Structures are given as C-alpha cells and as structure tokens.
C-alpha cells in the first residue's frame, strides 16, 4: 500500500489503511513516547492516545512537510499533554544534586547504542528530560518549549543547560562518550573544514 493510498484510506476511516498507517509509524513513535514517559506502559498509553488523535485529525493534513514529521508532532504534543496532567515542568533539580547523581553510576562497556543513550536520558528528572527531548532531539526552540510547557523561555534555557550537563555526566560516567576526546575530535574536524 502506497503512502497516498494509506493516507486516503485512513481519512475514510478504512480499518486496513489505518492498520498499515499504524504499522508504519508506531515503532518509531513508541520510541519517541518512551523518551518522555516514565515507563513502557505509560509510553504505550501515550502512543495509543496519539494515534487516535492522528486518525481523527488526519483530514487536516495538507501535504505540507513530511507525513512522519506531522505524525511526530502530534505524538510529542500528546506526550506533553499527558505529562502536564501529572507534573509541573517548573520543577527543577539543583546542579549539585545532578553531579552527585551521575557520579554514582557504574561504568559500563563503552558501546554507543541508541537504547543506552535513551536510558541515560530517561534517568534525568522529568522537567530536564522533557526540555532536553524537545530542544535537543525534537528541535523545538526555547520559546516554543516555554509555550508548550507553560514556563518561561529563560526557564527552558536554564533547565536545558542543566539537563545537558547532567546527561553529559551520565554518558561520560558510563563510558558512552569521552568528553575530552569528543571535544578534540570535533576541534580537529573543524580545523580540517577550515
């Protein structure tokens, strides 16, 4: 089934087309939900709610931008809405606490895998994690994040800075990244480019 057929069928509430649509996007979208959620069950609940929204609003999709991007934005907004019901995003964690947090982590073999990084992201406090997900991975600006989470833009920036520092610490602590080597490699690449 082509994307056009899938889309047209889903708009008409055709079950087969909707299932194909779901099969195509659900694995990646569950990955998105998982980064925001507390556990897998919550992630699946978010996914379910998100897809219901997608199917009911699919007729509004105007072929502007990629379909996956459109789907992803609905899923992200659904995740945020679910989280908003339960948690205030203005809550922050002190950086000192964050340092203590990641230094306690055991070292693991340095195998860079998406799963490991995601697990590291999920170790962040909810507010940090959400801002980091939105800014660093989903590409929202701090202004947008502030509007979505109903917090100030500056608060979003500061939370992101702290979240990033904490995540770096965890990744370094787990030997997933070597901060110095990472900086050096990047400096070399810049030199080569220049």
């Amino acid at each position, binding site marked *: 089934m082509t994307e056009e057929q899938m889309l047209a069928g889903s708009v*008409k*509430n*055709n*079950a087969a087309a*909707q*299932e194909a649509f*779901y099969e195509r996007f*659900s*694995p*990646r979208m*569950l*990955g998105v939900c*998982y*980064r925001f959620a507390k556990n*897998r069950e919550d*992630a*699946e609940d978010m*996914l*379910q709610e998100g*897809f*219901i929204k997608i*199917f009911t609003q699919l*007729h509004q999709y105007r072929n502007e931008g990629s379909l996956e991007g459109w789907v992803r934005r609905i899923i992200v907004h659904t995740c945020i809405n679910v989280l908003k019901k339960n948690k205030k995003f203005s809550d922050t964690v002190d950086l000192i606490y964050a340092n203590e947090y990641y230094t306690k982590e055991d070292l693991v073999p340095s195998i*860079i*895998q*998406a*799963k490991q*990084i*995601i697990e590291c*992201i999920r170790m962040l406090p909810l507010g940090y994690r959400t801002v980091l997900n939105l*800014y*660093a*991975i989903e*590409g929202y600006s701090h202004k947008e994040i502030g509007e979505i989470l109903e917090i100030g833009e500056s608060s979003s920036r500061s939370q992101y800075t702290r979240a*990033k520092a904490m995540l*770096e610490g965890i990744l370094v602590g787990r030997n997933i*990244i070597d901060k110095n080597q*990472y*900086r050096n490699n*990047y*400096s070399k690449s*810049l030199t080569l480019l220049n």
Partner: protein
Amino acid sequence: MEDTNYRNNFENFLRESIDDFKMIPSRKIWHSIYNNMHPDRKWPSITVCLLILVSILYLGVSNNNSLSKAARTANEQNASLLSNNSSNITTLKELPDNIKKEGGAQQIAANNNPTFIPTNTGSTITNDLINTPTVETYTTTLPQNNLEKTKKESIFEVAQKNKLTITNPSYTDENIAGSIATISSHENRKNSNVIPTTTIATVTTNTSVIYETDVNQLSKTNTAVTNEPTLTTVQSIDDKKSIEPTNTIVAVNESTNKDANKSTENNTLKELLKENKTLSAVSNVENKVSSKQAFMSKFKENASISYYITPSIGFRNLHSVRDIKNYNAAYSSFAANNAVVSNSVASSRDEKALNLEVGASMNYKLTKAVRLKTGLQVNYTNYISKVNDLGHPIQASLAVNNQQDVNRSSQYTTSEGSTHLNRSTLQIAVPIGTDIKIIGNDKFKWYVGASFQPTYVISGSAYVMSIDGKNYISEKPLLRKLNFNTALETYLSFKTSNGIIFNVGPQVRYQLLSTYKNNYNYSEKLYNVGVKIGVTTSF
C-alpha cells in the same frame, strides 16, 4: 566559538544516535485504537456470542425434552401398573427362569451381571400384598466392566429389556461412574402377588451420603430378612467426578431365600413405607432431581420457539439534515462531457423492491396474555432508483458534515432513466420484544407484538447524492454499520392437532437511524410493510 560548536555537535550526536530508535508496541495497543475508531465493529462478535448462547440453550432444552419424554412414558407405564389392582398379578412362577435358578444374594452377587434384575411385567399392588410381603434385600457389587457396559446402554433400554419400571425419569445413564445395586425382592406365597414399588434395584452414584443412607436402610431390611446380607461398597470409577445421584429403578423379583420368608412375615412393605426408612433415602434423591425437573418442566411449559419469514415491500423516507442550498450554488457538478445535469433529486424515481426477513425467536410466556421474545434474524433490504447512465463519469462533490468536501467520480444523474441503482443491504438483527394476546381460545389466538432490533449491516451498496442533488455517487464507506429497527405486528395463530402453531399477519418495520453515517447530508430511513408467516413449536 568552539564551545558553541561543541554544543551543536552534542545535540547532533544525540539526534543521530536516537533518530532510528524503534520499539515494537504490543498488539493490544492497535486493538484499543481500532476499537476506538470503529466502535460499531464490536457488534459481530456480540451477535455471534448471542447466537451461540441461543443455540446452546436450544440444544440443552431439546435434549432434556427427549429424555423427559422417555421418562414420561415410563411413568405412564408405572401408573398403569399401579392402577391395575386386580389383574395381571404375577406369580413367582411367572418370573424368569434365570432368576429362580440363581437363588440367593450370594449367588447373584457372584454373578457378574447384577446391575438390573429382570422382573415381571404387569405387577400390581394390592392391600393383601402390602400387608404380607416377604422382603429379601441384598446389595451387591457392580463390577467395573458391567458398569461400563451399562453406561453404553441406555438405562431406558435396559429397563425396557428387563421389564423394569423407572420411577425417577431424570436418570442420565452417562452419569454412572460408580454404583451400587441394591436388589430387593418380594415374595408372597399365599397370594402369589408381588409389589412393584419395592426397591429392587437402586443405582446410585458415589455421592456418599445418599449412598450410605440407602445402604443402611437396606441393610436393616436385609438383617431382618436374610441371614447373610451382602453389602458391598462400590468404588467410583472416577471419584473426582461430581455426579448427582441417579434414580431408583423399581422392579420386583422373586425371592429364593426360604428362611428369609419365614423370618419376615411381619416385616411388611407397608410398614417399611410407613416408617419411611428404605425409601426415604431414595425419595431424597428423587426430591432433589424432581426440583430440577419442576423447573425445567415449568420452563418448557412456558417456552416456545418460532421460525418465521417476512416478505415485504421496502420504502424510504429521505430528507436533508442541513441546509444545502448554499452548497448547491457553490458546488454544481462539473460535467466533463458537457452532459446536462440540471435535474433535481425529485426527478429520480424510486421503485419498490422485494425485501425479506428470516429468523427464529424464542418465546417465553410471562402471563396468560403476555410473552417475551428474542432471537436472531437476517434482513435483506432493497429498493431501486431509476436513473440515467451518463456514459462517461463526471466529477461530483460530496459534502459531509465536517465541512470537508470530497470530490468523487459519478456515473449517474438523478434524472429518471433506464438504469436501475439497486440499494440493498444484508443485515443481521437481534429482535427483543413482546407479544400480547388480544383474544383467543386454545386453537385460535390473535396477538399484537412489538420488537426493538439492534441491527448490524453485514454488507450493502450505497449510492449517495452529490451536494447539488444531481448525481448519484457510489460511496460504501458512508453506509452505517450499526442501526436499530423497530417492528410492529399483529397476527393470528392457529394450533394444529399435533401441537404446531401457524402464525400469519401483517408487519411494519421502521429503521430508527439513517442508512448512512451522520456526516452525510441526507437522512434516509427505510421502512417495510410485509406479511409475517411463521410456525411455533413448544419444547
């Protein structure tokens, strides 16, 4: 600058690392989404469940009915025996030879086939007999091989073959797991009469309480009658199986124990009956079973099943659910081949077509005049529109309620022509309703009835009108899957001599919701006028 680049690099690193991360959601997530998006599709499974339930109920009642018929026959035979006081008195001489030769209890016990002792036919009770019987009772083991053999053979067949009378008709021979046969006999030498109501062969299962009571009672009788009673407990073949006690088979046998006859002259069966000893245990069993019987017989008395067919003519009631004048102006169909499509909706002509309803229902009589009914039926609805075939498809707009206009290809104009658009649906419905008897006697009755029918549309064709009302567009997705019908009917019923009731009368069925989904501009409600013909049989 480097730090800024590093920051961007870090974010890119995260994005690239995570971008392809996928997780496979569990299947239940899709099912939940599906159920949410298609709530009406739960109905097929509900309907199938209802169908299975009705089938099981019908089969259960039918089977019980056949057993009860056999039991009733047995009871009638027994009653005829009891009522026949002065004739067909069986003497000992008339008893089968094999019984006489077998002699006492020990011999019978040793014989590997003691389950049912054959008895005479036409035995009766007389006062004399009751006053002066000689009762010999003994119990013996039923070997497993015999039990299994018995299991395969219907108890009614055994009873008939051996000329036994069954007093408890709800016996089910499948339930013999382990049994004890209590065999009693009676001899009246003076009058040469025998008593058929003595417990001769009691087959009980492994339900211990009843079993023990029975045996104890019989044991006392044995002691009084015979010098060496043989009471043996029989283990169940399947102790785990919970089985209800079965019935008592009443028969009469010849006594061969002469010593016992001498010692039990005063131990009459009448006394036994008065003291409610031996037979009391049996009657407990009978009471238990008879309460079930009473319930079933009450149900069967009030329940009946009807099969019916209703040929009818279908009509439709069509009206717009919102103002479509503005749409008419804005969206006139564009004829690619410059065909004239200025016809209005009114110019097409609907033709009536044959509709059909076939089903079965179970009826339950609440009072003398009122009965409830429910069942399963299949509806075929159909009507035809006469239209003009355009020859070349044109583009037509279909407006739906969410303000989204959909362009579709149309082959037909609504002007009256030679082409017939057949709008048919196949539906499955579960009517739930009531019938009220207006007047009638045992043979003729006049009823009025009404029912509410949740209906699921299995398949169908849909030709909906374009927004300007000038074209028909084939758009099956607009067909509503779940609908509700109501039916009003009145009919005459005639009962034949063999108990079958024929029903005939007019019926009107009206569809409560539109044939199409709510986002279609028009509401179409079908109604049928037909004649319902059916038969009703009791259980």
